[in-house]
Each structure stands twice: as structure tokens, then as C-alpha cells.
């Protein structure tokens, strides 16, 4: 089992009961990276992040350094941190916010300095009641400590940070929907172009949007240097990454592992991570990167946890959510539940997504409940093809955001891998698995 001795970059403190307090943070090197950054030029800080080759941890994996360099110059610019975390089976930002809110804040402050933004907003999923409390409390402590506000640590640099609650809508994780929501509107994704909020973002001003985990890596990168970060992992996937492991494993949880050097099998079976499948049952399939990702069969377990490695195999690491389904799993039910999620969460702006998701959900529901028809499998693939023509990976974009084209992933995977199981459902009106 490959469990590498890579340092824990974002989870070094979570073992402490009081990991979220300023006292613990300061006694474990907290806010030293911010002091160091403030003594550098903003460009030098950005150059370290660029050298780290830090890929965004929100799902799309865009290099943070490159995104930062695209920020249009303007006296008024914003940093918005995406803490909406609603992709099913993703629960890593939740951990970072509740267990190490100061680390997140320090990362945010480093970014505000490197980017010279006017203000930062941290958009947290509204359901994170404890997270909102912990983060706001940490922010209050940071203000009192002189780490945020006017003339931070006597450096002459000033910036305010605002913690903002969402109110329950998956689509608000999509960055342009998030900006709409932050402006106090319905979370409708914005029509592209402009493709990046770096040109036109919050209130029409240039804005960088980054994920919570992306920000939480910054203190380490500033303290140890971008090169040290890039020395971990391999190829484009540098550093460590948090994976949220769920489903049929003995020890579900969030694990920080070195990228590429670790495989899916390591994560699922190593005693320090997943610890294997309960009852030592066989794995039927697993979802490598959140419910928008195509599924893999057990023959893919030896793939390395790297962005390009997984993409080349036809799926994505996405949000870092890995869900294991063992031999007792009914695949019709799994595909139906995931599709029901999309049908509920589609914002309704685009016809293929709004109508398609409802259609697919109804067909899957009737198969699951014993009312399936012979033509249903073709119907499912046909309707899927209407949303994402050709059912390619990555999918073709037919809609305003990528939620729509992500809907067919699980359906296509399930039918492709378990056609006989679907046919038996239709023929016998019940589940062959039990």
C-alpha cells in the first residue's frame, strides 16, 4: 500500500480538539505565512503560487496562479471564496471550515494581498450553521489580533473580509450563480462569455473566485515555497489533496494524500484510509469525483489520484468525492437517486437541463419501482444524448452551465456497465440484487 510520507499541508491541526481556536493556531505557526507574505511584494507572493502549480480544488482544476494573472486591473476588485460545497458526497471544505477556520482566513488574506483586492467575501453554504459560527468567530479573533482590517500587522495593507451565508441551492456552487446569489438574487448561472469573473464578476467588477481548499493551501505554500509544493505529486497534479471517501468502506472520511503517488486502491483499502469494504465484499463500481463524474469499475482501482490520469481514463477527480458501491448495490436505484438530485437542483434556465432531468428521473423511477418498459433503456440514452450530444467525455456544452451536461454521466455509466441488471429490472419488475 502506498501511503507516502508527504507532509500534511491542510490537515496538520485537525487532530487537536481546539484546532479552530486562535490560541492553537498561533501556537502551531499560524499567521506567520501572512507576515512573511506582507514583507514580500504582491507579485512575489503570486509567483510562489504560480510556481506551486496549485490546481483549483473546487472541481474544474484550473491553475490558481493562472487565474490570478487574469484578474483585470481596476481600482475595485474582489476575491470571492467558494464554500458552497453541495456536490453530493463531497465533505472536505466542511472539515476545513469547522476544524481550521484560521488557516482558511490566513489563505484568504494572503490572496487578498497578492491580488490587491478591495474586499473578500467567503460564501459558505447556509446549512453550515456550525461552520458559519466557527468562521465568523475566527474572523473576529483575527480582527482583534490585527491580522485583518486596517494596516494589517503594521504593513500598510488594509482589507476587510465578510463571511456570507447561502441558503440552500446546489447551483450556487457554480461560480457565476454564486456571484448572483451574493448579489442577493436567485442563483441563476450567468451566460458566457465572459467566461471568467476575472473580467466581469461581482457587481460587474473583476473578481477571482477560488475554492476553500485552494485557499487553505496558501499559508503552507508561502512558508515553504512554491517549489516545495510542486515537488510533491507528479506532473500537473502537485501537492496533496483532500479526498472525501464515502459509501461502502469501513472508514469513510476525509483524507489528505499526496497526488498521483497514491491510487484509488490505496485510498479504499489502506488501513489508515478507507480500511476496505465491509464484509470484504467485492466492489461493483465507484464514483471517482462527485456525481457529475462517469463511474469506474474495480479494474480502475489502480489508477493514480491525479487530475490528468483520471481524465485520460474517461472521468474526472472533480470535487474529490469518491463513493464506493459494493456488490449489494442496486445500480438502477443509485442512478435514479443521482438523477433525482439533478432534477431537483436544475435552475430551470435551459430547456435540455430542465426538461431532460425531469424526464430521465421519471423513467428511472418507473424502472426502479417495477413499471419499466422494454423501450426505456433506449429512451434513457436518447434523452441523455439530447442533453449531451454524443455522450462524450468531457460532455459537449449545450447549456449555460455544466450542470446540464453532467446529468447523463451516471445514467450512461450505469447502463453501460450494468445493462443486464437494468434489463432484469424491466423484465421482472424487481431488483435482482435484493
Amino acid at each position, binding site marked *: 500500500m502506498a501511503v507516502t510520507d508527504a507532509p500534511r499541508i491542510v490537515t496538520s491541526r485537525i487532530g487537536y480538539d481546539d484546532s479552530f481556536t486562535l490560541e492553537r493556531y498561533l501556537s502551531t505557526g499560524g499567521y506567520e505565512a501572512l507576515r512573511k507574505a506582507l514583507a514580500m511584494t*504582491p507579485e512575489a507572493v503570486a509567483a510562489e503560487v504560480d510556481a506551486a502549480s496549485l490546481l483549483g480544488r473546487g472541481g474544474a482544476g484550473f491553475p490558481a496562479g493562472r487565474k490570478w494573472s487574469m484578474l483585470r486591473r481596476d481600482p475595485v476588485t474582489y476575491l470571492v471564496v467558494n464554500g458552497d460545497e453541495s456536490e453530493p*458526497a463531497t465533505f472536505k471544505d466542511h472539515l476545513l471550515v469547522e476544524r481550521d477556520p484560521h488557516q482558511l482566513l490566513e489563505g484568504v488574506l494572503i490572496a487578498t494581498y497578492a491580488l490587491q483586492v*478591495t474586499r473578500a467575501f467567503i460564501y459558505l453554504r447556509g446549512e453550515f450553521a*456550525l461552520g458559519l459560527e466557527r468562521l465568523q468567530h475566527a474572523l473576529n479573533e483575527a480582527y482583534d489580533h490585527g491580522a485583518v482590517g486596517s494596516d494589517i500587522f503594521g504593513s500598510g495593507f488594509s482589507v476587510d473580509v465578510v463571511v456570507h451565508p447561502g441558503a440552500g441551492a446546489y447551483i450556487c456552487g457554480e461560480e457565476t450563480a454564486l456571484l448572483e446569489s451574493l448579489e442577493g*438574487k436567485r442563483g441563476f448561472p450567468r451566460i458566457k462569455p465572459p467566461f471568467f469573473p476575472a473580467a466581469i464578476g461581482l457587481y460587474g467588477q473583476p473578481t477571482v473566485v477560488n475554492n476553500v481548499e485552494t485557499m487553505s493551501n496558501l499559508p503552507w505554500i508561502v512558508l515553504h515555497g512554491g517549489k516545495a509544493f510542486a515537488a510533491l505529486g507528479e506532473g500537473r497534479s502537485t501537492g496533496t489533496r483532500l479526498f472525501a471517501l*464515502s*459509501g461502502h468502506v469501513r472508514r469513510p472520511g476525509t483524507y489528505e494524500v499526496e497526488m498521483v503517488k497514491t491510487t484509488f486502491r490505496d485510498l479504499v483499502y489502506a488501513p489508515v484510509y478507507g480500511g476496505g469494504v465491509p464484509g470484504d465484499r467485492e466492489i461493483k463500481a465507484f464514483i471517482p469525483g462527485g456525481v457529475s463524474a462517469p463511474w469506474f469499475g474495480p479494474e480502475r482501482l489502480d489508477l493514480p489520484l491525479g487530475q490528468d490520469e483520471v481524465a485520460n481514463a474517461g472521468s474526472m477527480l472533480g470535487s474529490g468525492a469518491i463513493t464506493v458501491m459494493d456488490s449489494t448495490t442496486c445500480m438502477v436505484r443509485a442512478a435514479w437517486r443521482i438523477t433525482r438530485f439533478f432534477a431537483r437542483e436544475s435552475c430551470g434556465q435551459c430547456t435540455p437541463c430542465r426538461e431532460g432531468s425531469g424526464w430521465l428521473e421519471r423513467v428511472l423511477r418507473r424502472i426502479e419501482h417495477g413499471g419499466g418498459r422494454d423501450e426505456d433503456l433506449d429512451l434513457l440514452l436518447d434523452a441523455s444524448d439530447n442533453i449531451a450530444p454524443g455522450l462524450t467525455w468531457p460532455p459537449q456544452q449545450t447549456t449555460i452551465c455544466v450542470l446540464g451536461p453532467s446529468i447523463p454521466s451516471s445514467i450512461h455509466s450505469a447502463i453501460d456497465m450494468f445493462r443486464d441488471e437494468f434489463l432484469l429490472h424491466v423484465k421482472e419488475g424487481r431488483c435482482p440484487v435484493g
Partner: protein
Amino acid sequence: MTHFSPDMAARARELVSLYPEPRSALIPLCHLAQEQDGWLRPEAMEEIAGLVGVTAAEVRGTATFYDMLHTEPVGRYLVSICTNIACLLGGAEELLAHAERTLGVRAGRTTPDGVITLEDAECLAGCDRAPCVTVNHRYVGGLSADAFDQLVADLRAGRRGDEIPAHGTLVRVRRNGGLRVEGAQVAAERAAMSAAQADRARAAHDASGAGDG
């Protein structure tokens, strides 16, 4: 006569002051209203509209987009059971069926005594403790049927009050003051920084002898 209590009104004003445009405070203010009333009363939406400078219809139109904002009354405790993929694999559908049976209401409905509203929820980002259950958005862990019954008994008897406060996700959130830096000051500083940065970049470019010369 305002609908918000004086304390709420003060918190509402502070929230509005945190944003370049008041409308950004709309959702946080809805959370405050739910903290005070348990749900979004029409009077509250009127008042929020006035505070952020939109119509009450716009407040309602926005609020109905969001699952956490209730334009109809809900029970004292919102019990949410996640049935999404990770929890499904951990027995969520069976737990939800059990909950519907013992509470005597379908998901989405409130018990006749007004204590519990049952919700069939999407992923709550607590997937490592499946099936994930929250009460008023406080995690109470992955629950067995027996543990669920105990939870319900506790809620009805008012035994979990400390751990599970009333509605309003901001009920225990307070900021220690408003913004500390003037927007105009920040903008001026940033413009100067931006200019200096451009100068440095130009100087570095010249020094490296790049260009067409």
C-alpha cells in the same frame, strides 16, 4: 412600528453595511427573519425589501429559489434526512420510511403538534456518517431507527435545546463590528499599488533587454 425587534433591526443594519450594494444582504436578512419568526412572514419580507431597496415581491421571488428559506410556516424543528448517494448506500431510504411511519407524516410535512417538519434532503456534506441527519441544520450524526426515535422523543420533551437552537442559521453568529476600512481609501491604495506594479513590470521588462530593440 417595525417588524424586526430592536436587536434584530440593529443586526440587520450592520449586515447591510457590509456590502457595496445593499441587496447583497437580502439572504442574510431572510435568515434573521426566520430566526425571529421561524419562517418568512410577509411582514418580514416587506421590511427586508425596505432595508435593501427592492420590492417585497422581489424578496419573495428570490427567497423561493432557496431551500432553506420558508415562505410557509414550518415546525419548531426541521429534521432533515439526507437520501443522496452516500447516505442511500448507508440505508437512508429505510430511515426515511421509518421516520415517515413513526412521525405519521410524509417528507415535506409537519407533525400536527407543530414540533417537527420532516425533510427528504439532498447531500448535507456529512456523508461520512450515513445516513446523515440534521435538526435545524445541526448535525446529529448517522442514525439508526432506534436513535432516530430517541432523537424525536428528546426534541418533543425539549431536551436538546442547548445543542439545537431555534431556526436561523446565524442565530449564534455575531460580527465584532462593521467594516474597518473605508471603501474609498482602499480603492485609492489599490489604484496606487496597481500603478506601481505596472511600473515594476515595465522596469523589469526594460532591464531584461526584451523588446524589439
